[in-house]
């Protein structure tokens, strides 16, 4: 048990407190954690990912070929970014249903600016700005106007996808730029393209923001107990505006990545991104009630979903079974979450 040694102030009351840096029982701690259902619930996405990779590789050895791994990682980049975006909102006990539509709005803004002869840089900035503005509007309506997040973002879901159709007149724009091939096909090391690097950098920055800044703590406090946050002087309204703005901004970045991979700007919203972003968050062990979040979990969740769809395709399973399989996996993960502590 606890030994009141290593440097804790040896007052009469200190004996009950275990020193935080007690590395003595590490092996024992690992064993006891493995027996703990809560541990498996926390790491459901990673465990599921490993199991899926093992199963698909056993059934189809080419699943882990460098070509397929490259493809899967690149395909997961946009979803990873959207899952991170959704995590910030969900951490405040909110939800952003408009995330896929706002991404599409970003895609269309990028396409229209590009078709209008603007430089790629301007088109990128336009996509990110469009996402940021949509996110800010979401945030203000939720936090200041006091409308339920569900309703606000459902409205934005419809409005943003409608605006995307209006702006594009329903037509995609073909964007053939060598820059896009460079970032979506090449990378610093084999199997890792630049868009994967971008997604990884965003995930790392998001982790640092959530767990190593005051803002991140306030996000978790706002989601965990708005009363406590308010009582200590945290402006929960400001935090909420910020998380929706972050989600919109990241949706704009995801838009660029999607266009880079497709080489065109589809004007119709891809609703799978909405469902999968929420699914990745749930798989990642983030509480939909807010206050408890992780970045690594949703990232693994996004990878798991991408692997699942890719594996089923590799095995020749009909596309029609894919939404069904995602549904089963998500509900199973949610069931496991009940054991989370």
């Amino acid at each position, binding site marked *: 048990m606890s030994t009141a040694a290593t440097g804790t*102030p040896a007052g009469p009351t200190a004996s*009950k407190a275990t020193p935080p840096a007690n590395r003595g029982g590490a092996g024992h701690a690992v064993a006891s954690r493995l027996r703990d259902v809560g541990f498996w619930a926390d790491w459901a996405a990673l465990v599921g990912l490993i199991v899926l990779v093992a199963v698909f590789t056993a059934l189809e050895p080419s699943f882990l070929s460098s070509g397929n791994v490259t493809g899967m990682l690149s395909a997961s980049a946009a979803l990873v970014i959207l899952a991170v975006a959704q995590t910030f909102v969900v951490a405040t006990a909110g939800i952003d249903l408009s995330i896929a539509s706002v991404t599409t709005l970003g895609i269309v803004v990028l396409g229209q600016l590009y078709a209008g002869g603007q430089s790629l840089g301007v088109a990128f900035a336009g996509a990110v700005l469009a996402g940021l503005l949509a996110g800010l509007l979401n945030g203000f309506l939720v936090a200041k106007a006091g409308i339920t997040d569900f309703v606000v973002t459902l409205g934005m879901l419809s409005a943003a996808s409608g605006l995307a159709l209006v702006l594009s007149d329903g037509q995609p724009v073909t964007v053939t730029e060598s820059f896009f091939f460079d970032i979506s096909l090449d990378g610093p090391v084999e199997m890792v393209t630049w868009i994967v690097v971008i997604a990884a950098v965003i995930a790392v920055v998001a982790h640092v923001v959530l767990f*190593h800044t*005051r803002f991140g703590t306030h996000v*978790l406090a706002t989601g965990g*107990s708005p009363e406590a*946050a308010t009582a200590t002087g*945290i402006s929960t309204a400001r935090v909420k505006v910020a998380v929706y703005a972050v989600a919109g901004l990241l949706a704009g970045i995801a838009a660029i990545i999607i266009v880079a991979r497709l080489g065109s700007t589809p004007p119709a919203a891809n609703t799978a991104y909405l469902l999968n972003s929420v699914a990745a968050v749930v798989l990642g062990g983030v509480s939909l009630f807010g*206050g408890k979040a992780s970045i690594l979990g949703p990232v693994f969740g996004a990878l798991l979903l991408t692997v699942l769809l890719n594996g089923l395709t590799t095995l020749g399973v009909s596309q029609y079974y894919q939404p069904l399989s995602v549904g089963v996996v998500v509900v199973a993960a949610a069931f496991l979450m009940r054991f989370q502590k």
Partner: protein
Amino acid sequence: MNALEKKTAAGPIVEARNVSLSFGSVKALQDVSVTVAPGEITALVGDNGAGKSTLVRCFSGVHRPQSGEVLLDGRPVAFSSPEAARSAGIETVHQNLALVEDLTVWQNLFLNRELTRFGMLDRRRMKAEAQKMVSELAVNVPEVTSRVRRLSGGQRQAVSICRAAGFSSRLVIMDEPTAALGVQETARVEELILRLRDEGHAVLLISHNFDQVVRLSQQVWVMRAGRCVAGRRTDATTGQEIVGLITGAIAA
């Protein structure tokens, strides 16, 4: 009430002077005057709806009196927010404790007062200082790295009180700190309250437990129907008299 003025010769740390506050047609406070002396535990008693919580919320910056004044160190103050009251040294231990269950003890202790280094949280320093805050004051407090969700009611109360006691606060307001606790935990929290006083904090205690009031406090203010009907030095009164004053059986 007049006999009291002499005893607080050092001058009250916080004072309400003729404070009135209505919510619509409900007169929550009518011409209430109370004082809180430094280095003392001052109890505020009264039936439900007597206006105790409303009065302390005037001290903690939640409400602003419609007439009358709140004085801090003899000077009138108008707190625009709970944050303003906090920075003036008035801390509140809320009835619901205002803790975030999924955050750790140290995160709760430093909530919205996080220490940073180069813009990043200085987790190591906050943990160390949290450990110090906790071990100086409380007994039976777990590791500062454990989540509040895992703590017992008494431990949560202790964390909440530690937070209020830290950061060089001068007045700690407690709204029924032991209402939800068992006998043993109540004893521990009472010990903590006494220790707060001994360290020089003034304590304003709302309690329904008259034995507790008699045990802990030096001064009692009795409220009834939005008015402060009586004030007594605790050593000059009894639980029985307090009950009589609360119900109105004894005229003030």
